[in-house]
């Protein structure tokens, strides 16, 4: 049985990975594996995400 502290720790890690978008890469690898695609490199993958952000500016409020 995992202790509460370890659970909180892994919960936080999960949250940060999701919030920073790092989890996207894992999800993508997962996706490729399920569908038998050859995944692109992480550099290419992140570059695509950055390019998308370029054309979709997120407003930051006051």
């Amino acid at each position: 049985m995992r202790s509460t502290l370890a659970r909180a720790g892994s919960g936080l890690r999960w949250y940060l990975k999701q919030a920073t978008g790092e989890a996207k890469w894992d999800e993508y690898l997962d996706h490729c594996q399920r569908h038998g695609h050859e995944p692109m490199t992480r550099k290419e993958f992140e570059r695509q995400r950055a390019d998308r952000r370029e054309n979709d500016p997120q407003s930051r409020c006051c």
Partner: protein
Amino acid sequence: MSTTTQQSPSRRMTPKSMAVWGAVALVGAVCWTVLALSRGEEVSALWILFAALASYAIAYRFYARFIAYRVLGVDDRRATPAERLHNGADFDVTDRRVLFGHHFAAIAGAGPLVGPVLAAQMGYLPGTIWIIVGVIFAGAVQDMVVLFFSMRRDGKSLGQMVREEIGVVGGIAALIAVFAIMIIILAVLALVVVNALAESPWGVFSISLTIPIALFMGYYLRYLRPGRVMEVTAIGVALLLLAIIGGGYVEEMGLSEALTLSPEKLTLGLVLYGFVASILPVWMLLTPRDYLSTFMKIGVIVLLAIGLVISAPVLENQAVTDFALEGTGPVFAGKLFPFVFITIACGALSGFHALISSGTTPKMVAKESQVRMIGYGGMLMESFVAISALIAASVIDQGLYFAINSPAGVTGGEPGTAAEFVRSLGFTISPADLTAAAESIQEESLISRTGGAPTLAFGISLIFSSAFGSGLAAFWYHFAIMFEALFILTAVDAGTRVGRFMLQDTIGNFWPKYGDISWKPASWSASAIVVGMWGYMLYVGVTDPLGGINQLFPLFGISNQLLAAIALTLCVTLLFKHGKAKWAWVPGVALAWDLIVTMTASYQKVFSDDPKIGYFTQRSTYQAALDNGELLAPATDTSQMQQIITNSTVNGVLQALFALLTLVVVVNAVVIWVRAWRSGGLPTTEVPAEPSHLVAPSDFFATAEEKRAVREWEASQGDLVGDRR
């Protein structure tokens, strides 16, 4: 038209939950009573904090739930755009708690920190009441309802919805209003930074270093270790802390002369920075700095909440000052009504949030019922930030508060004259104490450091010193300045870029080539126009002899609240069109109050006979004096006289324009309300319902029932669920 509405998951309240909510209500009632009855005695700041928390909890549990299930009719059997249009990019099913974080990071900024600090000149009570009551009945309602309606329209923007649901006239007025208001907001935010950094070599040193730090992070993420955001953010934060500590040694490094910049130089620097930052690729500067500022934002807010509880400071501020009733306060002119309600915009009601609630967030919501925790809950959190800022400003000695926040034109900028001015207001502080306060945080002077940021930073440093040990006051002060400046700069970057896209899009309607966002001549010139506009307003503020914050902040507050009026008008319109006229009062109450406040304030700013309040009376007073060859204080020469005349004309015209544009939208909408009322509803652009196949909890904490449903669903989906915890 609306489909069958889902039944609220309203199990009858168990005895246990009745007892818990009864206790919360009791705590809230006791706190409010103490705040209402305490006068002239020592009042702990914790009463405010717990009055707020108890009120939020009750509003969230009961009112927000009522709005979600009864008024809006959220329906979890209906697929959200994130589920239907999933593309892994902008449409993306996102865990509710993660989306809450994203949404909060996007809506929270300097607004809820600065407004309450300025409003503290009227005492702590008016601000406290407005922040709490305002968020419950107006701000959080707006955010949630706009989020819901945009989600039902595949994430359409506020401007698009106004055009399609209200009319072309209203749509064009809304588009111009959104753009113009954004320019003012950027200018005022930039003004806050300029005022915080002017003549402060430590501040300039630390903030300047954020640029190379962010560039390094961008390079790291692009070339060295792509995608490792957490790791690079940790490095960035460590470097940031070093930059703050390093700032304490500017004197020893011989840089203090070179980094002591005048407000004019800083303005030029900011304008150039804003232009370059908005045309650079986002990965270089904007994205990495956004990671830093989000981290700092959340970190400071959490620290401040902990610090407040540990130190339990006593409020130095009065409950209600004489300025509230007489309208003669030096920080901004005008009486409690309407000016408290426009000075505190963000934190109680912020129109700008409607732009975030209709755009990115609605495309990521997993289940409809989650709009309650994300829209309403996110805004409650922002309101809590505003309450913390109000407390931080209210624990400062009142003499010092007014010395910091009164324009240089009246304080004279020297300890002696400032102490004398503060005495004339009815407070006391000695010149020696003023100097000592500045020395305690290693600044040259605190006198007339208007804009709210220095006051807040001073308050935060008091609270942190008392909670976490003394001796670090100067570090905490500059830490707080850094935290504010960092996310203001991020907002300026992002805002300029959004403005550029809006401008290119609009001009692109007539000249398609210009709308091509990758065409350099278009993007560069559009950026230059946007930066030029807010840069001009910033310059107006920086050089205004009457004090830029004093002159521009009301314009900023009113325009933000007018944007809220447009958003709330849309909410009312849509309830009418969906045949839910009986619920139109929910956003309607907020709209009515907001219109009363903003129209009174706009009227006073345009037509008041008092030259301190009315822009045009101000103009004619100074013009008449100039014609007679006289000088009116605080102007010291004819060019300053001329400047005041130009500035008040510009401000007055903008003020009148914003109010008119809002009225156009409202009048256009009223026509629709009447038509929809008569026919019991009108067709809308709501996307037809499609069944949802996702299962996810509604609220922050999943119930046992929801957890079971999620487990069963995940089991039935096999591998397809993907990487969930």
